[in-house]
């Protein structure tokens, strides 16, 4: 299963590193990554492959949310299907 991880918040040092390490620890492959700065707001979107993940989706979702709160950004993970359905014919 592929999922989209979205990180929104104020820019600071190490956001990508933090999340990438977490993904590595759980055996999650990062397939694609895109990052922009809108004013001082940091927006990162990652496409991840969960097929070899050593964690279930709900637990990962909680973990990402908690990690986001610690570093002061909003992190969410959603099934890729929603975006594909809504934006592709």
């Amino acid at each position: 299963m592929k999922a989209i991880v979205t990180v929104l918040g104020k820019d600071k040092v190490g956001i990508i590193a933090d999340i990438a390490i977490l993904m590595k620890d759980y055996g999650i492959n990062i397939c694609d990554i895109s990052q922009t700065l809108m004013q001082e707001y940091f927006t990162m979107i990652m496409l991840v492959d969960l097929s070899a993940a050593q964690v279930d989706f709900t637990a990962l979702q909680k973990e990402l949310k908690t990690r986001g709160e610690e570093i002061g950004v909003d992190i969410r993970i959603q099934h890729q299907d929603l975006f594909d359905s809504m934006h592709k014919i």
Partner: protein
Amino acid sequence: MINTGDILETIKMVDDQNLDVRTITLSLSLLDCTDSDGKKAEKKVYDKVMKRAGNLVKVGEQLSAELGIPVVNKRVSVTPVSIIGAPSGNYVGLAKALDKAAKEIGIDFLGGYSALVHKDATKAEEAFLHTIPEAISETEKLCSSVNVASTRSGINMNAVRLMGEIIKDLAARTANDRAIGCAKFVVFANAVEDNPFMAGAFTGLGEGEATVNVGVSGPGVVAAALKKCKGADLTTVAEVIKKTAFKITRAGQLVGGKAAEMLGAKFGIVDLSLAPTPAIGDSVAEILEIMGLSSVGGHGTTAALALLNDAVKKGGVMASSMVGGLSGAFIPVSEDAGMIEAVRANKLSLSKLEAMTAVCSVGLDMIAVPGDTSAETVSAIIADECAIGVVNNKTTAVRIIPVPGKKVGDEVSFGGLLGSAPIISVSDVDSSEFVRRGGIIPAPLHSLKN
């Protein structure tokens, strides 16, 4: 490949514009639950709902978390109880068994305490209709509907007359609770068999064993899209609504398909309706106002609503493999912040609401009227609405609440998704002799169209 713009747009729709899937409704056939022994019938329906819909809430919550889009309501609709309860006549017992199951599995509503009497009622159906006030006032989750008219058979005025009495009885029985019983009862013309929305959902006889029907929402998303095209002509407005409706419907289609698979049911339809909520920014009235009306209810409202309704359907049809249900813009007064405000400011009348129902699906919905409105006047309002549906070959409905002790200028708050409603004035013309005549208003001629 990541398309940042698309992903952020979806997230914004959910976070800021109240995009949600309004309901996943499991439509369940209870035709195999009939029994001439009332107690056995109760056990059969209870067991079947528990077995087939036991996981519905869990499935809704799981999909909501995985996809990141709220699934607001989880509901069940069943075969009309007037049919499955006929062998025993234990209608109220079945109502309580269904309500108990609904509470135990944690769903929001269960619909199907229903009867189809658009041409005539059998003795059993007549007995059933008289149990509606008791069944609905003594249960919590159960919803009831009666089809009293159809384009092919006309308007059963005997049933229409009885509906006024049932609504008054329901209001009296639930007077201490803001006449909430009336919010769970709807009268239809041309009722549909696959409606996911309450209070009118039931499983039609043409439906299968278990089917998931989905109702989408998203007035806030349409409003946000229209705000970006200020000054554009109405052709452009229709195009923007179509594109937005496509996206909203796709979300519903995805959730419905996944839910059906997880529940071992078939996927039925997406109901292309823009269901509002009382939350600010989730209002159908606001869309009409963004189109250029200073308030909903003014001249031009019917035309604006017709444009909206048609564009939502055109966008939605392309997005879903199967569409059905009511499929139109909802204008429930108490559930739409903009409608509430317009009634409060005396800008929106019952007559204008009636005109609006000629171009949009649902009819007079969640309208609170003075407590001293007579049963005959309520029936006459229903008859008018049925006439609009029957002649225009569309579904119309009436969910009206004569709130005991309240008069024009007062307000009544139902709480939650049902919102709050200012009491709207009704005509003081006496229509009782017309209503008391009974009989059938014959089916309309569908040729000689001028």
